């Protein structure tokens, strides 16, 4: 043992690294098991075991879709489109100033205004449009307006966050060049910053519009207009063939809007 040098065998990780890795995995597994136990405490397993037969039953009720119901879906579909588009516009109108206030290089006061703008962004981002809709339906009553405002409020955070990040990433030399001509603050924004973030802005807007189409299809579940109202009505009377048709229509709309947004973004950027 003393004379023979043990040739070191290459190993992927150091012993400490391995220990840490195992510890991490162990912690994760323990957390998972614990959460699983807590979560399934109230689960009635009979319903879960019963699920395949329930699924088969549901499937047999859902096909064939009731195609004739389509006549009554065109108008809600138009409403859905309007909710998404107007909601996106509303969101953008509010998000643009918020983004300029939140960006480190354009904010008037990094101490006071920036945290406030960031708070608006986080609050808007963390609450789903369906929850906004739930609140707004209770406040201003069911209908398209609640849907538009819900979509708008949810869009503020998304648009403002991506926009302020792209404002922070602009080329500072151009700003300096415009400022050197004696331009005022507004002119600097207009001639140096806006042209640089405009492509990103249109990309973000179209991307958000696409997401909003997706979200506005379900806002009706809480009464905020659009095709979701029909979905809710059909679910309430357990008219599964109609539900199937609505799912198909929603899927087609989502795929179409995704295609449109991909095309437009490709053309812009």
């Amino acid at each position, binding site marked *: 043992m003393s004379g023979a040098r043990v040739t070191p065998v290459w190993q992927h990780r150091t012993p400490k690294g391995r220990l840490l890795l195992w510890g991490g995995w162990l912690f994760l597994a323990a957390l*998972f098991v614990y959460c699983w136990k807590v979560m399934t405490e109230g689960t009635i397993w009979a319903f879960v075991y019963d699920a395949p037969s329930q699924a088969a039953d549901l499937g047999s009720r859902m096909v064939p879709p009731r195609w004739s119901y389509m006549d009554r879906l065109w108008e809600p579909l138009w409403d859905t489109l309007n909710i998404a588009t107007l909601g996106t516009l509303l969101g953008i109108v509010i998000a643009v100033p918020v983004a300029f206030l939140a960006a480190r290089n354009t904010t008037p006061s990094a101490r006071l205004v920036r945290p406030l703008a960031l708070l608006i962004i986080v609050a808007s981002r963390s609450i789903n449009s369906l929850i906004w809709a739930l609140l707004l339906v209770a406040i201003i009553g069911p209908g398209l307006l609640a849907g538009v405002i819900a979509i708008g409020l949810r869009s503020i955070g998304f648009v403002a966050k991506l926009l302020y990040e792209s404002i922070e990433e602009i080329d500072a030399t151009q700003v300096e060049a415009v400022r050197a001509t004696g331009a005022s603050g507004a002119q600097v924004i207009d001639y140096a910053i806006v042209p640089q973030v405009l492509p990103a802005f249109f990309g973000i807007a179209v991307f958000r519009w696409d997401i909003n189409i997706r979200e506005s299809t379900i806002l009706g579940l809480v009464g905020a207009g659009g095709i979701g109202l029909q979905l809710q009505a059909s679910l309430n009377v357990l008219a599964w063939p109609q539900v199937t048709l609505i799912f198909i229509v929603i899927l087609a709309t989502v795929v179409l809007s995704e295609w449109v947004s991909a095309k437009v973004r490709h053309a812009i950027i």
Partner: protein
Amino acid sequence: MSAEIARRRWRRPPILIQSRAWRSIIYGGALIYFLLAIGSIQVNWVRVYEGLERGWRFIEGFLVPDFTSRWGDIQVGLVESLTMTVTSTVVGIAISVPIGIGAARNLAPAPVYFLCRAIIAVSRSFQEIIIAILFVAMFGFGPFAGFLTLSFATIGFLAKLLAEDIEDIDESQAEAIRATGADWWQLVNYAVQPQVMPRLIGLSLYRLDINFRESAVIGIVGAGGIGATLNTAIDRYEYDSAGAILIIIILIVMLAEYSSSHVRKWVQ
């Protein structure tokens, strides 16, 4: 000549559409659509006016939230949401890693690739709420349906981004490992995994965050969690409790976002 140029004022070129005819057609069309869309909104102003008082009460509830009187309900909903988030993220990742590898063109043979891409497309095209409606109908009310919904939604998100990441890896590293005579598993383990791991961890944390936010929503259709509590609070017009729940959601999301950005920085 030069004097004429000097006299001409510089005008800013139009953004996006250079041709004047197309510009007026597209802007005109957009304006007509905008007016039509505004016209399609029928607002019952009396109802809005009546609702303003409620809106004010909600703002008051948000400013002076009531955490105590429904604390029991909130706690139950919160525990359901959090456990649902953790379990569904873990299960979702565990399923989406093999699917993501299968959906990477440079690792998987064509049949596997198309199968995995199809799974991703199905999972991505339906939103959480619709999946939740179906799962609640099959598995009954409660967090179990929510857990399944979120796991299903995680697969589409994570597998797609993982597959794209694997397709973007540095091929020379994979070739170097392949040149040592490594088999497919070793290739994945020593060439692909170290390259995609930081991003996979980042995406997993991001998805954890999304799953929590979604868990607040799917409760509305009966899939358990804090969303159900919130729905009840709003139905009862208890805006101070609803405000408290929203504040808790916002705080947890902020915390998750903040810590996940730190972990991501540390990993990369």
